[in-house]
């Protein structure tokens, strides 16, 4: 059961746009919506951010690559491995600049923004390569790190003196939950409420959302606004979202993201809201519906938009890490949910839509890579099918994005390769298996994970738990050879993301 995609409609306005809402409801999408003070400030900030980015780009070649992915998709390890491999350059043979011997080296530089935490590369690498080797702790919120790459340009190859060129690469790592917040910018409170409640009633979410939906039955949007009631609803709603995120359900559509990843906003009144049944844009002032709607709008204005302006709108390239194997492990509902989440997140890369101001200051993400991570958890013979499965999940949304002009690719990567593919003889047939040390154990094991036979239908009906993907420990002695962390297809991912800038 796919979740219906976000209805396409003009952007919603701030809290004082109730009158205009009726105009919109009549379906006249051509009418330029009146711009509120909120919006003006928003556009002003975006234009300023854009101008500063442009100025910086004119002075020096600069690429900002966003790295995102839902919890446990392996963002931290990915960024650590990318940095380590770029610094050492020994395990990226398919990055064209390295293959052509034009890559002179890379160095870390102080990050550009003083108020954004720097990605703790050294610490994470220390954890990965220490004894005993361990996975780094998860990072929270936005992290940034800057690398300078030195390249000998291709066109200069045949000149006598070839001048080296520097390319600044900023890696911005942020929670995928925040990416899923961006579609909220296009939804007003009643729309979002209806959508969320509809979703919560579907299996397997109906079981997880029982308590919250019981609470919903007791309140109406018209009852007097009361902070305590709102808090109660928000707490129940948050508990439901957390349950969705747990390992065995592994659901992906989590909105709003700050409920589960509050960052600096823990306990802020801003987060004390939740969807209400029967919410309406004309809810009277002083009612619970109006209170919730105001907080929803405040959430958009002070959480989602600043993130959009400061980080997302300034990205040039984006990689979305997807824990596809986790979803396959969890079963069909997790996969369906992942499809919805991916479609939702892709909507944010659709540009050229909306008002002329939006177009003027629009995002510049022109390449998006979706990568199924932890590819080393399956045998190498299965990588093509993992990639195809992700490709199928993205199929619908992908056509639209390509139409809008951004290049999209899909791949299967492993930021740190901890297993080896081996073929075993089992009952007279050859099975491609992985060999590695499972998490929490000390000895190697050989695991047959189950083969994806049909990528368009990876979880066929009638077969219970067709897959068994396990987490593995980082192998001991990682990075001791000084060539960079062993990886799978990191070079091809980088080639797609930044290869053209290294030409």
């Amino acid at each position: 059961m796919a979740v219906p995609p976000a209805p396409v409609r003009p952007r919603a306005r701030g809290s004082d746009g109730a009158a205009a809402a009726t105009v919109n409801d009549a379906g006249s999408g051509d009418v330029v919506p009146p711009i509120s003070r909120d919006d003006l400030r928003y556009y002003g900030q975006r234009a300023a951010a854009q101008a500063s980015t442009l100025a910086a780009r004119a002075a020096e070649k600069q690429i900002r690559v966003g790295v995102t992915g839902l919890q446990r998709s392996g963002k931290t390890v990915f960024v650590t491995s990318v940095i380590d491999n770029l610094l050492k350059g020994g395990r990226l043979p398919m990055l064209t600049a390295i293959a052509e011997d034009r890559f002179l080296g890379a160095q870390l530089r102080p990050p550009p923004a003083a108020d954004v935490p720097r990605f703790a590369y050294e610490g994470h690498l220390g954890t990965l390569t220490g004894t005993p080797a361990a996975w780094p702790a998860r990072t929270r919120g936005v992290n940034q790190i800057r690398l300078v790459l030195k390249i000998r340009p291709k066109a200069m190859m045949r000149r006598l003196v070839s001048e080296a060129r520097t390319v600044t690469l900023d890696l911005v790592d942020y929670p995928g939950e925040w990416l899923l917040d961006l579609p909220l910018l296009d939804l007003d409170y009643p729309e979002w409420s209806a959508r969320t409640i509809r979703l919560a009633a579907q299996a397997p979410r109906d079981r997880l959302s029982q308590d919250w939906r019981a609470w919903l039955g007791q309140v109406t949007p018209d009852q007097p606004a009361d902070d305590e009631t709102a808090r109660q609803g928000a707490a129940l709603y948050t508990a439901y979202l957390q349950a969705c995120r747990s390992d065995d359900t592994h659901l992906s559509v989590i909105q709003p993201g700050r409920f589960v990843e509050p960052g600096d906003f823990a306990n802020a009144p801003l987060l004390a809201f939740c969807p209400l049944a029967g919410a309406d844009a004309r809810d009277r002032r002083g009612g619970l519906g109006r209170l919730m709607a105001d907080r929803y709008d405040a959430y958009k204005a002070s959480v989602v938009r600043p993130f959009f302006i400061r980080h997302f709108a300034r990205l040039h390239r984006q990689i979305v890490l997807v824990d596809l194997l986790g979803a396959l492990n969890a079963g069909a509902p997790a996969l369906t949910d992942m499809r919805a989440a991916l479609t939702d997140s892709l909507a944010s890369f659709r540009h050229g839509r909306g008002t002329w101001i939006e177009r003027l200051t629009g995002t510049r993400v022109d390449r998006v890579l979706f990568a199924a991570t932890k590819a080393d958890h399956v045998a190498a013979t299965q990588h093509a099918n993992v990639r195809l499965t992700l490709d199928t999940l993205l199929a619908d949304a992908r056509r639209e994005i390509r139409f809008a002009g951004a290049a999209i690719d899909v791949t299967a990567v492993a930021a740190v390769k901890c297993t080896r593919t081996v073929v075993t003889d089992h009952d007279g047939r050859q099975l491609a298996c992985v060999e590695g040390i499972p998490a929490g154990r000390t000895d190697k094991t050989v695991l047959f994970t189950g083969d994806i036979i049909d990528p368009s239908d990876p979880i066929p009906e009638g077969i219970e738990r067709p897959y068994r993907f396990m987490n593995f420990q980082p192998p001991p002695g990682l990075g001791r050879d000084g060539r960079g962390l062993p990886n799978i297809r990191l070079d091809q991912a980088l080639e797609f993301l930044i290869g053209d800038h290294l030409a």
Partner: protein
Amino acid sequence: MTATGTIDRSPPPGGRPRPMELDPADRRIDVLDDRPDALAALAAEPAAAAETPAAAQPRQGWPALGWAVAGIAALVAVALCFDAAALVARAFAASNVLGVAVSGLLAAVVVVVIRAFVDELRGLGRLRRGDALRAEAERVIARAGHGDAAGVAARLKTFLDHRPDTAVAWRTVDTHLTDAHDDRESLYLVEGALLVPIDRDAYGAVVRAARDTALATALSPSAVLDLAIVLWRTARMTREVAGLYGVRPGPVGQVRLIRRLVSNLAVAGLAETAHHAAVDALGGSLAAAVSARIGQGLINGLLAARLGVAAMHACRPMPFGPERAPNLLGIRAELLRMPKEVF
């Protein structure tokens, strides 16, 4: 992709294997190296594939005429043998010393002819082996499976044994290859380490030939001389390019190669030909307006360049990877720059 039943959804023979943990002490085989069955199948397949077109080709001519020629050749050979025997006999009749000298000379001639014949055959064989290897590599790359790349790489290794400097390249490939690479990726890495350096040399040879041809025809006083220069320089370039890739055709092989190049000019991976021909013609006519001789030189140079690129396609033992095919744009830029440098 809609589920219209084009995909085989039936479980593999013997039922779908369940995920399970196996005993590490189980007998295991590494994916990349030891798959003797697959290797043997690979080694057997391409030979058969190569035989078919080679065997089919000569039959396309006139068999009657072929027999006639062969018969005449045999008659001539028999006559030559008689003549030679008579010659030796006459030399011995005149003096023993002369007889020994003449028979020694005759023996030397026979040895040289046989050597040339064997070389020719070997050159043709290499040409054919290169074709087979390329076809095989194309198939393995298209399939992008696992375990077949090693066979292609091994054959490429023997094919390139004429180059002394490949050991380092093979070591590079070895350090970079992991069990996670599929055949397409493995062969891409192999190609990058082994063939791309050769490509660079071959491209250099083509550019040089194009420049020489252009310059010489621009300066030569007569059209006949033009033709001679173009033919001689093109032949030399083809030999040079072929030699770089490890194909060393003798005269017959070379004629065959050039014939193929000419017929391949329109196809053989030169999808750009039609487009470039138009652009070249425009550019050429512009130059011709400035100076007929220079224009002619440029056109001849471009023709040589195009033949050279076709030769690269025809002699390379593996297909060009994405973005690795040589382009004519660079050569044209070079040629167009030339008049400024010369005059």
